[in-house]
C-alpha cells in the first residue's frame, strides 16, 4: 500500500520528464561524455586543460560579468517592475513597458553590439553630441570593448528580463496585506522590510539566478564586441568548436561546457541554501 502511494504522484510528472529526457538530457549526456574523450578514447586531458591560466581567467571574467549584470540588472529591473506594477493592468504604459521588455529581453548579438557602438562608439550619435557640446571624448580608452562596456550592454537585455520574470511576483503582493499591516500600526519601512521583502525574496533570488545563467552562457554579443582573445568561457567554447586555425578541439569545448554546468549547479546550491535560511519563518 505504502509503496503504491509514494509512486503514484510521480506519474503526474512523467510526461515532463520524458520530454526533457529526449530533448535536454540526451544532449547534455552527449556533452558530458564528450568532455571525457579525446581522439575517440577515454581521457582526462581536456579536464586538465581547464586549469590553464587562460581558461581560469576566462572563468573569472565570466563569473564577474554574469554576477555583476545579474545584480545590477536585477535591482534596476525590480525597480522598473515596481514602478509599473502599481499602474492598472489595462493601462497603456504598463502594457507597453511589458511588451517592450519581452522583446528587448531577447535582443543580443551583432545587432545589439552595433546599436551600442553606433551610440557611444567611434562616431556614434551620443559620442558626437557630447563631443560637440562638452568637448568630451566618450570613447576614452576603448572601455566599451572591455568589461565595463560588456556590463553596460548586457544590462540592456538583463533589465527587461528581470521585469518580465519578477513582475508576476510583485503582482502577487495583495494591497490588502499592506492595509492589514497599516491597521496593525506598521510604518511604510516596517511593511517593506518585514512583510514585502521576505515575501518577495524567493522570487527575487530566483530571478537573479536566471539572470546569472542568462549572462553566463551568452556569447553572441561579446563575440561582436570583443572578438579578440576569447575572454569569457562561451567564447572559448565557440573558438574550440569553430576555429579554422587550431583544429581538433571539440572535446575541449565539451569540457568547458561541463565546467559551466558545474558552476551553475554550485550557484544554484548557494541560492537554495540562502532561500532555506531566509524563509525559515514561512511554512
Amino acid at each position, binding site marked *: 500500500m505504502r509503496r503504491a502511494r509514494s509512486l503514484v504522484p510521480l506519474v503526474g510528472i512523467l510526461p515532463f520528464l520524458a520530454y526533457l529526457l529526449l*530533448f535536454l538530457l540526451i544532449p547534455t549526456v552527449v556533452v558530458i561524455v564528450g568532455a571525457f574523450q579525446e581522439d575517440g578514447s577515454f581521457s582526462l586531458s581536456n579536464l586538465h586543460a581547464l586549469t590553464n591560466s587562460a581558461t581560469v581567467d576566462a572563468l573569472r571574467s565570466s563569473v564577474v560579468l554574469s554576477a555583476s549584470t545579474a545584480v545590477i540588472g536585477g535591482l534596476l529591473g525590480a525597480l522598473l517592475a515596481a514602478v509599473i506594477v502599481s499602474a492598472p493592468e489595462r493601462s497603456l504604459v504598463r502594457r507597453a513597458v511589458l511588451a517592450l521588455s519581452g522583446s528587448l529581453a531577447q535582443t543580443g548579438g551583432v545587432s545589439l553590439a552595433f*546599436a551600442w557602438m553606433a551610440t557611444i562608439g567611434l562616431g556614434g550619435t551620443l559620442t558626437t553630441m557630447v563631443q560637440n557640446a562638452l568637448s568630451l571624448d566618450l570613447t576614452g580608452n576603448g572601455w566599451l570593448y572591455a568589461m565595463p562596456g560588456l556590463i553596460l550592454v548586457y544590462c540592456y537585455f538583463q533589465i527587461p528580463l528581470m521585469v518580465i520574470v519578477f513582475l*508576476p*511576483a510583485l503582482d502577487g503582493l495583495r494591497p490588502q496585506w499592506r492595509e492589514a499591516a497599516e491597521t496593525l500600526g506598521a510604518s511604510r519601512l516596517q511593511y517593506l522590510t518585514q512583510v514585502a521583502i521576505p515575501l518577495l525574496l524567493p522570487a527575487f533570488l530566483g530571478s537573479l539566478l536566471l539572470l546569472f545563467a542568462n549572462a553566463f*552562457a551568452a556569447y*553572441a554579443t561579446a563575440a561582436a564586441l570583443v572578438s579578440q582573445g576569447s575572454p569569457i568561457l562561451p567564447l572559448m567554447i565557440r573558438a574550440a568548436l569553430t576555429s579554422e586555425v587550431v583544429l581538433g578541439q571539440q572535446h575541449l569545448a565539451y569540457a568547458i561546457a561541463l565546467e559551466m554546468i558545474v558552476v551553475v549547479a554550485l550557484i544554484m546550491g548557494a541560492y537554495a541554501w540562502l532561500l532555506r535560511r531566509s524563509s525559515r519563518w514561512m511554512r
Partner: protein
Amino acid sequence: MKPWLRWLILLVFAVYFFGPLLSMLDFSTKTTSGGRSGAAWKALVTNHQVLGAIGQSLLLCVTTVVLMLVILLPTMIWVRLRLPRLKRLIEFLCLLPLTIPALVIVVGINGVYAWVNYFFGYSPVVLTFAYVVLVLPYAYRALDSSLSALDVTTLAEAARSLGAGWLTVITRVVVPNVGAGILSAAFISVALVLGEFTFASLLNYQTLPVVIDLFGKRDAHVSVAAALGSIVFASALLLLLSFAGARSRGRKGA
C-alpha cells in the same frame, strides 16, 4: 511612490533603452552621400522571402507557447502540491538549457532531431520541440514567481474538500490565479521564438531571424533595419497579445 518620481524613473530608463534603438534607426536611414532615405526599410518590408517567413515564425510561436504551457504548468503545480521534495530538481532541470550554450546543445540534440525529422518532416515547425526546451528557464521563473504568491496548498485543499478532482483543481482553481505568470511566460516565449537564431541556423531551418539575417547581408543599412524591424515587430505583437490576455483573465482572488 510619488507620480513625478515614477515618471522620472521611466524617463531615465527610456533614454537608456531607446538611445541605441534611435542610433539604429539613424544608421538604417542614412545614405553614403549623407542624405536620408527609407530605401533599406522599403526593401525589407517588401521582400517576399521575409514576408513568407513571418507566417512560419508566427506559427512556431503559437506551437511553442501552447506546448510549453501544456507541459510545464501542470507539472509545476503538481510538484508544488504533491512532490515538494522534487522542486529543486525541477528547478535545476529547467535552468539547464540556459547553462549550456546553444552551439553545444546542437551537437547533442542532432541525433534526436534525425528521428524528429523522420517522423515529422523538415518544416521549421519541428523546431517547436527544441524551442520549448530553450524557453523553459524563462517560463519556469515567470510561472514560479506567480505561483509563489499564491497559497496553492490551501486553495487545493479547499477545492478538494469541496469535491473537486485534481484536474479541476489545476484548471479551474489554480490556473486562473496565475494569469500574470502565464502572460509573462507567453511573452518571453514569443520573443524568444521570433529572435532565436543559433539553433535554426545550425540545424538549417528557414525561420524569420535566419531569413532576415541572410537578407541583411547584401547591405549594411538593410541589416540594421532588419534588426530594428524585428524588435519593433516583436514588441507590436506582444502589445497585441497583452490586449488579448487581459480580457480573458478573471478578477484576482482574495
